[in-house]
């Protein structure tokens, strides 16, 4: 579903991404681990066609991202590291707007409230302006937007950043549910524990290169941490 082949991104002489090869099949959760500046966000931006590759190719559901920018985006849901919404609108209004943009004008208010409840946005918070939300609350609305899109592919950039442990746990449960529904999920994260808990594949990135790929079923939490730290030195 999500495929990068020899994907490279140069900024002048700086190689931000170096010949990345990865594949995320439907029903897989691929966790990209790495330090800041390793190329995780660059990878996600390339899948979203926010930036153009310098070499290689990137495709979504078999469609090249560069030559099919709109069609590929329609197949993707995206949760940025910091979900920024329209502060003058309520959580519900933001969800409604982004759902319509995502091609879903059919949702009723009850449907939208259901999405917000599913991500744990408590009580009347949905009717308050997002300008008064905490980071975690905005993150939940971002997750709700991704759910509402019913996309085949999900791109998540540090999605649990700012979430409390309970919310983070609830988010993991959601991811597993989406995985069971056949979504292909690419998640950039620093959270080794969450990557092992929810991911099916872990990719360790360093300085723009994918240095190791692990199947989470074959390693323990301790192994993941040890291998990761070995690559970071």
């Amino acid at each position, binding site marked *: 579903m999500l495929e990068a082949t020899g994907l490279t991104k140069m900024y002048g002489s700086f190689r931000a991404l170096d010949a990345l090869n990865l594949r995320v099949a439907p029903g897989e959760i691929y966790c990209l681990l790495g330090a800041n500046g390793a190329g995780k966000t660059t990878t996600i*931006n390339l899948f*979203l066609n*926010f930036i153009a590759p310098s070499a290689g190719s990137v495709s979504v559901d078999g469609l090249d991202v560069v030559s099919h920018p*709109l069609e590929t985006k329609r197949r993707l849901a*995206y949760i940025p590291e910091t979900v*920024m919404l329209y502060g003058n609108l309520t959580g519900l209004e933001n969800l409604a707007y982004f759902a319509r*943009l995502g091609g879903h004008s059919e949702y009723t208010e009850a449907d939208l409230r259901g999405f917000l409840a599913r991500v744990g946005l408590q009580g009347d918070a949905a009717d308050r302006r997002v300008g008064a939300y905490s980071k975690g609350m905005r993150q939940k609305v971002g997750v709700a937007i991704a759910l509402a899109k019913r996309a085949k592919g999900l*791109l998540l950039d540090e999605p649990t950043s700012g979430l409390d442990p309970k919310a983070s746990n609830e988010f993991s449960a959601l991811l597993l549910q989406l995985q069971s529904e056949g979504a292909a999920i690419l998640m950039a994260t620093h959270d080794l524990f969450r990557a092992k808990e929810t991911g099916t594949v872990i990719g360790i990135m360093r300085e723009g290169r994918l240095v190791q790929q692990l199947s989470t079923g074959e390693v323990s939490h301790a192994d993941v941490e040890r291998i990761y730290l070995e690559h970071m030195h």
Partner: protein
Amino acid sequence: MFRIVFAQELRNLAGARTWWGILGLLAVLIVLAAANGGSRFARMAEGASRLNDDETTLQRGLRDAVARYEAGPQGDPPSASSPGNVGLSLLGHYARLPFPALAALSVGQADVQPGYYRVTAKPAYTFTGVSEIQNPLTQVLGSFDLAFVLVFVLPILIVASSFDLLSREKEAGTLALVAAQGVRLRTLVLAKIVARAAMILPVLLALVLLAGVIVGADLADADTLLQLLTVFAVAAAYAAFWLALAVLVNSLDWRSETNGVVLANAWLVFVVVMPAFVNVAASMLYPAPSRVELTTELREASEAADREAAQARDAYLFDHPELAGAGAPLDEFYLKVLASDAAVEKAIAPILRRFEEQAASRERVVAGLRYASPAIAAQEALNALAATDNARFGDFSRQVQDFHARWRAFFSARIARGERLRATDFDAIPAFEYRSPGYAPSRQAAALPLAFLAGSAALLLAWAAARFRRYPVV
């Protein structure tokens, strides 16, 4: 996708207090400006309507004096029967340019060009004046009328509401989430543009029509209504230019604050500096002749003409044999004055011609440079539509010259023939009535500036669209 973004943008704008503040300020300024322009022209019209009161009273008195003498001649004929005395000394006629109601929307050249002349039988230069009234502040800033608000203030409001049209979305972080939904950047920007236009244009139209009502225009008259709609079209095209400029600046991917500074400077250059520069450039390239030089030449020409008065009189009658009378000229003194005037006019004709040519060249320079700034183009279009532009005053001046020739001929023919004025002659003294060309020519005159403004806006948007293809969303 466009409809979704457009509807949301409309809701965002409608929910923003600053937006209503902007529209409210525009409304207040337009109403005040229209009222100011209206009262100014009302005062001018009221004063102008009384201009000929004294002349009419004088003319009636002179006619009555002659009529009394004709009824029962006693003693010498009254001086009122002398065409020389009446035409060259006593009587004049104020040729007045009537302004339509819509003139109050743009004072334009009415501030610097004369709206009336006191026509006499003396040469035209004695009452037209040949010096320019230079009021740099007026020329730069104009009067506080609807045109001022549209040309100076409207761009500020447009820029204030659109300088961060896209940059704020990027800085706030919402742009990435919107773009990830598959919204083309150009669609997003277009929806924002159209939303702003949908909010401001109906208000602008209503305010222009309201301004027309305030200045006393008859909206039931189709021609007047069409004129006001053309004023709105110019305002809309001008607003479109500034909105397009804001969009272009946003396409350069600068910070919102930088956009604001750049657009503020653009306003300063286009609205304040360029118009002043154009005036200065025109005056430097084609300066008006020196007033001292003109006065000196006039005096020298008069003195020379006085010395040659007799010869001039003979030459005058030689040139105008049809005016030679049967007996001795009644008004020999005034005949000498006529001849002297003709000699002086001949002597100073080259300098007057030079002045007119310089003035015409200056106008050509200004006309050519009007497209250096959208503010100049908009102001010129609004002046044309309000009938306060140079073309209107030029037409008035030409009609006054024609009238002056008739007025002068009325008295000079009788002076040369040695005829006395009869009471019935006073009823035949010409009176000036301005033949208005109507509104249609002014709409034609406004068409090119209007097309320039709309075309410039389109070019800026096309440029911005090309830049948005490379715009970094993150």
